[in-house]
């Protein structure tokens, strides 16, 4: 049945009416095919404007409406809601005669264009069908990938709200980088002391299924209904039996560097990365062990009174169904070997900021004592270099955002430990934008008598037992040469390589520095473009602990909002395959980025509506034109093309 279309042209004050001859447009469009009624109004989006639409729908018996006003991104929802009171909301379309018309063209041109835009919109509307929202069920369980502070916080929030969480961590223990830190700016509380209670809470929580030493290897499905495969790596130690007595470690003959201590301390092949590890258990490092199969040593098993060691443990694949996924895979530091322009080679006395954190930590390789690594002596002169690899076109162009703060902290902690020591900090700018951060920096500068040098370092080289740092003080224009005992590089923060692998599995985008790309940089900072996937912490961009925790709670609240419903509504503008004529060539299956096009047993393609996001790539690719996009059909678009020319 032919539609009775009503046209409502908005003046938008003088924004449109000051340029476009709205009265003429409304008048002439009244006689366009299919149009039953046409009028103008001052502000269509206002309450009286909306009431006018209601009134005319009733009086004129309209069953479809075009609002010629601003961009659909502004008010499409508003008007569809109004029309939805009377008929299917998809029978309401907007014609953009403001952003892409009255604001950019002169009067005559704009009026002509307004006609064309309106005609095209009427043509589209004439081809529209009633669409009902597609509902998909929600599996109210959440997968959290990465057990740093971001993943821990998100998991706790969701679990506390009563939903099950599967927390997957690839390392033997959760905790992430925060477990490696000494004291935290700006308050200098001990990092582990504030973190470990949360780690223990994770271990104890009845709603959290912790899978440490595990990796996600496959993800399929869609929002509300993801299927996940998780690989549980064998620890060769039974988590439940291990009492962490340490007898095994004492007898283990294989010694390797401990990654947790940035390899500055040794560990055994059977090890616990740090004493407060969660889950609290030993793990055998397969690579370092003298040999599991065939068994070459077995000293640990003999020593273990709890009988926790099992050399026959096998990798296990666990399948889980979840409704939402939070990616919290954290960060790494940029490789210091890549800063070739400084000219240094391997040098024990040039260390990264994380290595220095370990040195400062009471549980670290030196027991909290600051030493010059090559000699073990107390370093009397230390140079800290900020923006090492950050804000640098040759390396990472962005600001790593946390280095100004932790370098100030490092210099302060150094001065507290070595009273007669001298600390120099090379910086480009000081960025201390967090709460109480500026005060912290000011305190460091004033009370600790640290030499802040504004400028870049040109060269670093060894001269006897000293490391010479050459730079320019850009405030005085003078060259600076410092003969230091130790150099600490505040390396650029980058997303972990593993984040790329996870992003591939999830089909979400990764940008510069391996950071996950959010749906909207301002309004959707924790959401992926694909629904049901959220980000938290440094995996999304460099940030400090407060911002990480805030983001984790934000991601959790998004998940909880989703879990508060039993069914999810999704946009019904999906693809439909004409099955009768489908040749089964499979091109649509190969082009669909969402795996929504699937081959049926009869060889023909079918669109899984719950997966389809409505991009239309399949419709454009189908060689026999047997795929249509609902309310964006080929014939609709061709009619639009015709009337705009």
């Amino acid at each position, binding site marked *: 049945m032919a539609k009775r279309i009503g046209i409502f042209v908005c003046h938008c004050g003088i924004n449109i009416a000051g340029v476009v001859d709205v009265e003429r447009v409304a008048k002439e469009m009244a006689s366009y095919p299919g149009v039953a009624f046409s009028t103008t109004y001052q502000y269509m989006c206002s309450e009286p404007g909306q009431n006018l639409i209601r009134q005319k729908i009733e009086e004129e018996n309209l069953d479809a409406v075009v609002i010629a006003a601003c961009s659909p991104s502004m008010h499409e929802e508003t008007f569809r809601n109004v029309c939805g009171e009377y008929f299917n909301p998809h029978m309401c379309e907007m014609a953009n005669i403001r952003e*892409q*018309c009255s604001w950019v063209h002169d009067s005559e*041109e704009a009026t002509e264009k307004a006609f064309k835009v309106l005609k095209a919109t009427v043509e589209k509307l004439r081809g529209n069908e009633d669409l009902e929202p597609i509902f998909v069920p929600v599996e109210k369980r959440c997968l959290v990938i990465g057990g740093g502070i971001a993943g821990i916080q998100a998991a706790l929030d969701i679990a506390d709200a009563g939903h099950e969480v599967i927390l997957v961590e690839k390392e033997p223990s959760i905790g992430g980088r925060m477990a490696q830190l000494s004291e935290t700016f700006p308050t200098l509380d001990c990092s582990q002391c504030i973190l470990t209670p949360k780690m223990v809470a994770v271990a104890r929580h009845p709603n959290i299924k912790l899978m440490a030493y595990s990796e996600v290897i496959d993800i399929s499905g869609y929002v509300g209904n993801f299927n996940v495969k998780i690989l549980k790596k064998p620890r060769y130690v039974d988590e439940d039996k291990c009492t962490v007595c340490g007898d095994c470690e004492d007898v283990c003959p294989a010694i390797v560097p401990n990654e947790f201590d940035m390899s500055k301390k040794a560990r055994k092949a059977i090890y616990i990365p740090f004493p407060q590890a969660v889950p609290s258990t030993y793990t055998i490092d397969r690579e370092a062990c003298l040999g599991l199969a065939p068994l070459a040593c077995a000293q640990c098993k003999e020593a273990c009174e709890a009988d926790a060691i099992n050399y026959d443990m096998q990798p296990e694949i666990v399948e889980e169904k979840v409704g939402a996924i939070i990616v919290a895979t954290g960060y790494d530091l940029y490789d210091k070997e890549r800063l070739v322009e400084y000219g240094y080679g391997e040098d024990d006395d040039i260390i990264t900021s994380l290595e220095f954190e370990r040195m400062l930590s009471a549980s670290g390789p030196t027991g909290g004592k600051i030493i010059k690594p090559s000699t073990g002596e107390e370093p009397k002169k230390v140079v800290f270099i900020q923006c090492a690899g950050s804000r640098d076109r040759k390396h990472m162009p962005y600001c790593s955002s946390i280095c100004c703060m932790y370098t100030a902290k490092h210099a302060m902690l150094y001065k507290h430990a070595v009273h007669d020591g001298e600390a120099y900090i090379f910086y480009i700018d000081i960025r201390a934008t967090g709460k109480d951060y500026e005060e912290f920096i000011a305190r460091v500068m004033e009370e600790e008598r640290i030499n802040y040098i504004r400028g870049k370092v040109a060269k670093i080289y060894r001269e006897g037992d000293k490391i010479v740092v050459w730079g320019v003080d850009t405030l005085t224009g003078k060259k600076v040469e410092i003969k230091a005992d130790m150099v600490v590089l505040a390396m650029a923060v980058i997303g972990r390589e593993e984040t790329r692998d996870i992003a591939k599995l999830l*089909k979400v985008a990764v940008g510069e520095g391996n950071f996950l790309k959010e749906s909207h940089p301002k309004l959707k900072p924790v959401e992926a473009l694909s629904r049901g996937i959220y980000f938290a912490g440094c995996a999304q961009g460099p940030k400090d602990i407060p911002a990480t925790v805030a983001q984790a709670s934000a991601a959790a609240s998004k998940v909880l909002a989703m879990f508060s419903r039993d069914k999810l509504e999704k946009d019904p503008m999906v693809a439909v395959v004409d099955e009768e004529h489908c040749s089964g060539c499979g091109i649509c299956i190969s082009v669909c980025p969402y795996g929504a096009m699937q081959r049926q047993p009869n060889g023909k393609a079918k669109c899984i509506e719950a997966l389809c996001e409505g991009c239309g790539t399949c419709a454009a690719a189908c060689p026999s034109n047997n795929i249509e996009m609902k309310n964006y059909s080929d014939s609709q678009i061709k009619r639009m*093309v015709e009337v705009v*020319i």
Partner: protein
Amino acid sequence: MSFEPKIVAFLCNWCAYAGADMAGTSRLKYPGNMIAIRVMCSGRVDPEFILEAFEKGADGVFIGGCHPGDCHYVSGNYRTRRRVEMMKRLLEEMGINPRRLRLEWVSATEGQKFARVVKEFVEEIRQLGPSPIKKEEAI
């Protein structure tokens, strides 16, 4: 009367259409010869739509999508890039100057770029003159 080019544009909803809105919000003037049809993704643009436009008398066809890597639907714009390359060759064979088909990446923030490329394109088509297909019809 001087020649006024008729141009059809297909703009993806997430980047190019939003970029065109941004040009409006920034009140950047550009010629009104081009009318936009909003599609969800540039990957929706069927080569048939381009042919249809030329057949119906368009002097130029413009496709606006997200920058490579930024497509809202992951990879639609890569398909578009390939299709446009193919279409340019086809147009050439048909005797239509391939410059009459233009693909541009415009992000939601690039109002300036949108206004600039529209100006350029309209100017280019003006130089090229009316589409040969239209001339044939006129004869």
